[in-house]
């Protein structure tokens, strides 16, 4: 029993954090929101170059040959930077599911961009910038995408019609694509939450009221500590779910649901607390916090919300 990441896993995640600090600061996220694309091809090619996008493809197919345990800290780092575009869908589902199909090579190389359409929603995130849409049992190309006005400018929402279908199995090592995304989203939500807490802590250290930094007031301290508590205690379950998924454990679905439920609730609580710490500034378009909050609000409801996943856990635990 050993519950820790290897040095290699840690170093890769740290490398990604550094890359994103340089290539995906808040200003880039904001630009992608405001230019209406919801995606940055330049950032995409950096992620591809580092091997992030192909982490879950076999080495034989030109990928990094990693497992979900290798990828989980990367999902978290992507969330910490609120990376826009279909990076989770591409990385966690399209690449591993389609690696050995004719779609595989360009996806693994990052030359083709994929997103995912799950059955529980009429909308397809990122369809406007995707070359292919993965569904449970087929792939769509040459489809029409109509803007559905999503809240998160880094995860634009579309309705999709038409398209050419190619049969293909979107399962990822025995996982339904919905579950693979629930797992990836859980880690991404944790990363988002970590960064929201950092942003709010930075603000609380400098913003003064009543002649003191607001971070010196217990009310602020306790709001922030309680958010951190929820985020910290969502981590181990999420890493465990990655291990279960990597090893094809019987408990994979239960473990993923537990992770997504806890991460969704932690991210929501964090968004509320960090916004409250910001006061009026947190309610503005200009404050960077909104870029993280809206991503959290979108993702916490996608691929099953906390209620859906809690009840899947109930099904295993209370039966």
């Amino acid at each position, binding site marked *: 029993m050993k519950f820790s990441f290897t040095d290699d896993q840690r170093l890769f995640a740290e490398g990604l954090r550094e890359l994103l600090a340089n290539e995906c600061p808040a200003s880039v996220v904001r630009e992608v929101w405001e230019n209406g694309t919801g995606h940055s091809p330049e950032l995409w090619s950096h992620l591809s170059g580092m091997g992030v996008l192909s982490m879950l493809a076999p080495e034989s197919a030109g990928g990094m040959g990693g497992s979900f345990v290798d990828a989980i800290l990367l999902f978290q780092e992507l969330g910490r930077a609120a990376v826009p575009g279909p990076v989770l869908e591409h990385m966690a589902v399209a690449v591993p599911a389609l690696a050995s199909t004719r779609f595989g090579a360009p996806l693994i190389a990052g030359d083709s961009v994929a997103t995912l359409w799950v059955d*529980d*929603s*009429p*909308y397809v995130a990122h369809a406007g910038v995707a070359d292919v849409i993965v569904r449970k049992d087929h792939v769509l190309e040459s489809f029409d995408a109509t803007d*559905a*006005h*999503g*809240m*998160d400018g880094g995860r634009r*929402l579309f309705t999709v019609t038409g398209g050419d279908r190619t049969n293909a199995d979107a399962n990822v090592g025995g996982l339904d694509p919905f579950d693979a995304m629930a797992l990836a989203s859980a880690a991404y939500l944790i990363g988002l939450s970590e960064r929201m807490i950092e942003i709010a802590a930075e603000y609380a250290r400098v913003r*003064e*009221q*009543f002649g*003191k930094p*607001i971070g010196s*007031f217990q*009310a*602020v301290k306790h709001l922030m500590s309680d958010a951190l508590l929820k985020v910290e205690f969502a981590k181990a379950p999420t890493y465990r779910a990655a291990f279960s998924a990597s090893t094809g454990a019987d408990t994979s679905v239960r473990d993923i649901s537990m992770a997504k439920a806890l991460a969704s609730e932690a991210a929501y609580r964090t968004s*509320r607390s960090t*916004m*409250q710490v910001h*006061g*009026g500034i*947190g*309610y*503005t*378009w*200009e404050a960077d916090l*909104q870029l993280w909050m809206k991503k959290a*609000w*979108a993702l916490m*409801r*996608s691929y099953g*919300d906390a*209620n859906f996943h809690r009840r899947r856990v109930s099904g295993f635990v209370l039966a």
Partner: protein
Amino acid sequence: MDLRETADEIAFRLEARTWLEANVPSEPLPSFDTAEGFALHRQWEKKLYDGRWSAVSWPEQYGGRGADYIKWLIFEEEYYRAGAPGRVNQNGIFLLGPTIMEVGTDAQKEKFLPTMASSEIVWGQAWSEPNAGSDLAGIKSKALRDGDDWILNGQKIWASRAVWADWCFGIFRTDPEAERHRGLTFILCPLNLPGITVRPIAQLDGDTGFAEIFFDDVRVPVENTLGEVDKGWGVAMATAGFERGVSLRSPARFSEAVNRLVALWQRLGDKSDTALADAVTDVWMQAEGYRLHTYQTVTGMLEGRPIGAEASLNKIFWSEMDVRIHEIALQIIGPEAERMEGPLERWVDGFLFSLSGPIYAGTNEIQRNIIADRVLQLPKGM
């Protein structure tokens, strides 16, 4: 105690209902935070005024009906029931107006109240400053006396409606030696004067419901002082107390919202989910509790018992309830709650708007301090 409406109250309710049914626009107006929407809302206010419904609790001489608070609550219930437009001149009619009636001169009453009731003049408010938010007494904007004028300099922020409004009201430091809440004066100021720059602030939803106002040697006559010079804090607190206490969020708003929530649940909610039913019932009870609590408060006011720091309890209660109502709605709505447009967008807009509640008009953290210090008599901590 008699919680049944009197014959007079029932008649008033029916009169309001009849008028509203005949006059409320059949389609919702565009947001009053747009040029077009603002103009349409101003027209609507004029129509209300013409029917003597714009300020029912004001004396008849200023365009009201002299309705007591109970009738005001009844009117609000009918207003929300009818799905009538938001009140673009709320800052004026519900905040500034009662303050003018309390501390204004006769000349000020004559000058400001009728145009306020008719929304010929729409008012923005200008309390906060970049470094005076929760700590409102930290205000730095100055008014210097020069002959018969004030010369205003400084910067206000979170000024609601100020982008399109005609006038604003706020407090300015008139005694530069005085500290904190002393030496402040309450001043009324047109927004079209030379030296004023209004910079809209985009909100979470992208709309511009509030603004920054920059004052650069803006000259206003001293007649525009409301109340005594250097005593503006007391005037502002009377306004803010009323804001938090009753008028800012009348119970009808939440009763209407929970009724819509119940309808949403009936249409889209999973009926076998008792947790969801519990959540809906909880906020229904909260809205009903808030309504009852308000009727109790208002009866007390009519019987001569003033409201005090309890206003802070109200503010926490309604703002947290409003967030909760919208959280539950978005949970029922599911993936559709990610969309900013569509048939359910009102709930998404409402959610974003609700998040401002625990912050503005004094954060809920500040309100909790006020309750602890003034109601529970705990020792001051700051």
